[in-house]
């Protein structure tokens, strides 16, 4: 290597870069820079630049239908309008659910704090804390005539939270047994894994349309199965007659049932992802632990409770965070199933952002995106902290 030549050209940041490139002997730093450049450049242009633009837009009042106003700087006015206004159109029943949720999460949270388990690594503890905070925020705000702003925003915020809570819990409740089953040694194992991958690979829009057809109230399979198993009669006597059509529940045209139907759809779609992540966790557990436990006389339940669950915790953490992130961004499935309806009962935060964009209110949609982004970012930071403290 010709060092003397390299040192002569001191004006270059990397001495002899081009020469080294030609001869294929770059230093680690140079090669690394070269290899990372395409990926980092793409991410900077397509991800970072838009996020910065959205931040800028969110403090400017741009509205495409009022182009003569331009995009004046309005500070935090968009956020004030969103969070801090005077028209509130909520039913008290809506608040009650949040109060109950917040209060129900308090005792286990208290238990966690008392046990000193609210440290960095405690997923359940932090989730409970978040539920309590949101529950109080949503359930105990001043209510009708109070000082909370854009009713449509709070409506979308609350439906998003409902979807997060129900679908994340639901996908874990379904995903864990699925992962355990997929790990069973059986002649059906291959088919089982296909069945596990199909919901994961299915486009969300397709899933939404498919389930809209399954939940169709007159000719759908769900109502037909309920009818055939005789559950329809039972349901008919239990639920509000407003929810019933001539052939069973009106799944997609009534608020309560539509929320249920959309959550079931999301759970079907996402529990297989949870199961796949948990499956990896299961396969990484050392089999000798089970042998040892068996020798010590532990039964299957004890083995599950004392070995499988604790060893699965890292995988649970990863799946939990990814699921929460995708749940925050819920858009495609409610869009495909009901376009956010009936009314605005299924207008999630994502759908609200989209509807605001199509209504040309660029500034306000940017402010909404910032909220969406802040929520995702908070969860991501929490997640990264978790992963890196584990090592």
């Amino acid at each position, binding site marked *: 290597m010709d060092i003397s030549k390299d040192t002569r050209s001191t004006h270059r940041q990397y001495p002899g870069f081009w020469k080294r490139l030609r001869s294929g002997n770059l230093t680690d730093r140079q090669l690394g820079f070269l290899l990372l450049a395409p990926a980092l450049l793409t991410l900077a242009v397509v991800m970072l630049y838009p996020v910065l633009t959205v931040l800028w837009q969110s403090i400017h009042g741009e509205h495409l239908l009022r182009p003569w106003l331009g995009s004046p700087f309005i500070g935090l006015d968009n956020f004030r309008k969103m969070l801090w206004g005077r028209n509130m159109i909520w039913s008290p029943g809506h608040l009650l659910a949040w109060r109950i949720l917040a209060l129900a999460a308090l005792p286990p949270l208290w238990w966690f704090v008392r046990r000193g388990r609210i440290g960095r690594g405690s997923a359940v503890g932090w989730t409970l804390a978040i539920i309590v905070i949101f529950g109080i925020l949503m359930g105990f705000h001043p209510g009708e005539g109070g000082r909370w702003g854009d009713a449509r925003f709070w409506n979308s915020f609350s439906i998003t939270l409902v979807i997060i809570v129900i679908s994340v819990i639901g996908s874990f409740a379904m995903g864990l047994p699925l992962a355990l089953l997929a790990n069973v040694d059986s*002649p059906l194992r291959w088919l089982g894994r296909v069945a596990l991958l199909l919901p994961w690979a299915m486009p969300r829009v397709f899933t939404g349309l498919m389930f809209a*057809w399954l939940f169709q109230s007159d000719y759908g399979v769900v109502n037909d199965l309920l009818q055939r198993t005789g559950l329809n009669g039972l349901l008919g006597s239990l639920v509000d007659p407003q929810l019933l059509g001539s052939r069973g529940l009106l799944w997609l045209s009534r608020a309560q049932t539509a929320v249920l139907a959309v959550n079931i759809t999301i759970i079907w779609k996402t529990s297989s992802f949870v199961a796949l992540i948990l499956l990896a966790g299961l396969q990484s557990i050392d089999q000798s632990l089970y042998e040892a436990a068996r020798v010590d006389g532990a039964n299957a339940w004890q083995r599950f409770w004392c070995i499988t669950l604790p060893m699965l915790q890292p995988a649970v953490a990863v799946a939990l965070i990814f699921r929460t992130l995708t749940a925050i961004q819920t858009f495609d499935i409610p869009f495909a199933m009901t376009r956010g309806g009936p009314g605005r009962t299924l207008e999630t935060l994502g759908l609200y952002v989209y509807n605001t964009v199509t209504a040309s209110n660029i500034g306000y949609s940017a402010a909404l995106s910032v909220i969406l982004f802040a929520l995702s970012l908070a969860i991501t930071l929490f997640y990264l902290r978790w992963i890196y403290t584990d090592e």
Partner: protein
Amino acid sequence: MNSRARRSARVWLNLALLVMIVGGIFPAVWLVLTSLKLDGELVRQPITYLPDKPTLRNYLEVFEANPFARFLLNSVVVSLSSTLICVLFASLAGYALARLRLPARRTIMTSIVMTSMFPALVLLVPLYRLFVGVELPGLGGLATPNLLNSYWALIIPYVALSLPIATLILTSFFQLIPKDLEAAAMVDGSSRTGALFRIVAPLSAPGIVTAGIIVFVNSWNEFLLAFTFNTTMNMRTVPVGIILYQGEFSFEWSIISAALTLGIVPLVVLIIFFQQRIISGLTAGGVKG
């Protein structure tokens, strides 16, 4: 443990597995069955499970009502090209992150992971404006081309959206290839780039396939950006095209089912042939995360 108890446990487990298989596959099977029925049969009470007179008419109608073949072509072009570009970029970056002594390795890795959490929704308006064409500052009115209603309007964001997961998968994959092999090649007189192409690239083929499948599935499935950026009939992808059938027909479920079935076929083929690869890729991306 006595063998009878074990055998009955086995039976129960297999039964549960069967339930899981039915639960996972039934909605798709129902789709196929619906697509084979005539409209008259769909609105009959009680509903029939197997089609009375199986027909392929709905499939013909899918192609007649809208340029569905064009939707398929668009999806294939967009997904394949974004997969190729994304995997190329990701394998370069993954190699650098897995092998080279870089000063800010951890920070770079973290920021790449962070971008995977950006919601596509947030990108919507800024990317739209970017693709309409922006004037480059200081170049005297020179502007970027209008990319809306072109393949690039989708390929560029799809590459970026899948880059983080692909980089994660490939980084963890490159870390598994023994460093000594490369060192040996370099001792034998091969340059570093030579070693990269002759030793590392062939060994990492499985990892590249894994990442590629996942990027492909992500791109095939994306809806929001495709729905917004490519609005002319000829540039729509399959998920966007299928939404169009809604409301176009009085009772549209037979034709939608046929269209959905056609859209799912490539994914089912991928799943059946590459299930082990997909599972290992998803878990590498997730757990190493």
